[in-house]
């Protein structure tokens, strides 16, 4: 596989950037070398497998820019303003499981802060899609907010809802929790013995380390409360499964979600949001029937995408990564804005993939 020359890739990125600037965006140019703390706090150790971490100038760790979203959010949260539109083009660095893929490549992106959520989602999708529409990309969309709303609407303990919410982005663990909370996974003998024990700390040795005995006792109490709580209703687990396995054109998916909302009314605001987004897209000439909706789309990628998500890939080139991706990340603005967040949505295009796909 030959990759397009850097200069061609650069010219394509600049061309896309110019279009985003024409659209009214302000140009931003985040540092290439970012302090690692923020990214590690957000994404945990997983990011080390995807990014290049290096000793930093201040004795801490630094990271070669693994994406633009985090530094752009930091830039915006320090200044605020609603709405605000930003665009950028530059290198990002990612470790690739496939060594033949580039570890350094260009991204051109557009981010929109504030504004009406449905309008903003449609504006970003339309702008990104328009630049690659000539490649006839396969479009897959989703909405993590619907799953989140469904979990928040489950009739169970707050601890269980929070445990599920924490693992929305880790499908395996999410499933393991659902199985446990619904009683599908039986309680392990060791766990049953522990909860039944009169002296759970018998012969358990001295208290060592920073996690205190009081913290262990707190969790034991939580485990006892959990054991006493009734299992999740099979019907509710079935509704979550219905959402996760949904794969249909967006107009049909909306109808299906409205059916699910009859039994799970907590998702109604999120499905109303989907309806408004589809209307806004339709008004821009993007028919909902053309947008495939998948209930689990966007779950296994990056955390903090908590609403609309989209991926555009080249249908004849399954060997290439998506040509464009994007989504809503209100949760990220909360995490970086000290709990005080705002609406934000954005998308990026990979000029190198456009060139490979048209070569």
């Amino acid at each position, binding site marked *: 596989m030959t990759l397009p020359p850097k200069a061609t890739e650069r010219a394509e990125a600049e061309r896309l950037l110019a279009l985003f600037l024409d659209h009214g965006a302000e140009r931003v140019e985040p540092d290439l070398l970012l302090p690692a703390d923020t990214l590690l706090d957000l994404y945990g*150790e997983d990011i080390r497998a995807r990014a290049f971490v290096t000793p930093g100038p201040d004795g801490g760790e630094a990271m070669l820019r693994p994406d633009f979203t985090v530094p752009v959010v930091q830039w915006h949260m320090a200044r605020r303003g609603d709405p605000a539109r930003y665009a950028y083009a530059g290198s990002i660095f990612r470790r690739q499981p496939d060594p033949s893929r580039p570890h350094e490549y260009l991204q051109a992106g557009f981010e929109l802060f504030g504004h009406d959520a449905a309008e903003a989602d449609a504006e970003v999708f339309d702008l990104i899609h328009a630049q690659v529409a000539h490649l006839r990309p396969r479009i897959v969309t989703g909405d993590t907010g619907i799953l989140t709303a469904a979990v928040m609407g489950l009739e169970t303990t707050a601890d269980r809802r929070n445990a599920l919410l924490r693992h929305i982005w*880790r*499908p395996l663990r999410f499933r393991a929790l659902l199985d446990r909370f619904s009683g599908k996974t039986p309680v*392990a003998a*060791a766990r049953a013995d*522990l909860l039944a024990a009169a002296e759970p700390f018998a012969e358990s040795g001295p208290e*060592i380390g920073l996690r205190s005995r009081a913290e262990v006792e707190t969790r034991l109490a939580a485990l006892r409360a959990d054991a006493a709580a009734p299992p999740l209703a099979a019907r509710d687990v079935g509704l979550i499964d219905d959402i996760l396995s949904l794969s249909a054109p967006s107009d049909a998916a909306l109808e299906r979600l409205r059916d699910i909302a009859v039994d799970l009314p907590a998702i109604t605001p999120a499905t109303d949001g989907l309806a408004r987004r589809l209307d806004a897209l339709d008004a821009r000439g993007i028919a909902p029937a053309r947008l495939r909706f998948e209930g689990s789309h966007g779950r296994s990628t990056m955390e903090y995408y908590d609403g609309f998500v989209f991926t555009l890939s080249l249908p004849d080139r399954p060997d290439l990564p998506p040509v464009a991706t994007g989504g809503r990340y209100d949760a990220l603005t909360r995490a970086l804005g000290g709990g005080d967040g705002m609406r934000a949505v954005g998308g990026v295009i990979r000029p190198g993939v456009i060139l490979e796909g048209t070569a």
Partner: protein
Amino acid sequence: MIKLGVPSKGRLMEKTFQWFAERGITMEKVEDREYAGRVSGIDGVEMVLLSAGEIPRELAAGRIHLGVTGSDLVREKLAGWDSRVEELARMGFGHADLVIAVPNFWVDVDTLDDLDAAAAAFRRRHGHRLRIATKYHRLMREYLRGHGVADYQLVDSQGATEGTVRNETAEAIADITSTGETLRANHLKTLSDGPVHASQATLFRAVDAPWDDAAQATLADLRGRLGV
């Protein structure tokens, strides 16, 4: 001529020699030259004595065709190890398990599921992620990621890892253990999910070594004799 990398000292070297000897191939160190050896019983194989820790890198670079080392070292040192080396034989010695251990008095933590839940609560309480001391960063990261564990961080520990919990530089550890003795002496217990990786001495083939016709013929001959 194909180059076979073998651990240069200790029981790992002796057991490797023994394993090949049982299959009709004799290896010996050449006394006056420290890092060279003699191979008899087959033509076209040259032995290179290397530290077990260097063998993964030499295999990945294709500077040796074959190498004997611990499967843990290959997985830890090589990104995408399975596209760079091929396992020809698990040799049945040098067993060592990489395990996660937590304080024994954490009676609420028995599985990875528990560790994950404890990590979430720990982070809320202490303001930083639950620290796991280890020198096996890649193996641990891939394992915990594969199992969807969050809110932990790996801190580097190149020695005396069992002491890090008592010293409060880590809350849990992940280390190689052949017996549970050291863990028990340090009031630590392993999780019940089983080891992160059950390592043993393994004969690897380097994908990127110069496999010309002669080298391939020698390899076929060798594999026939070894029955692998």
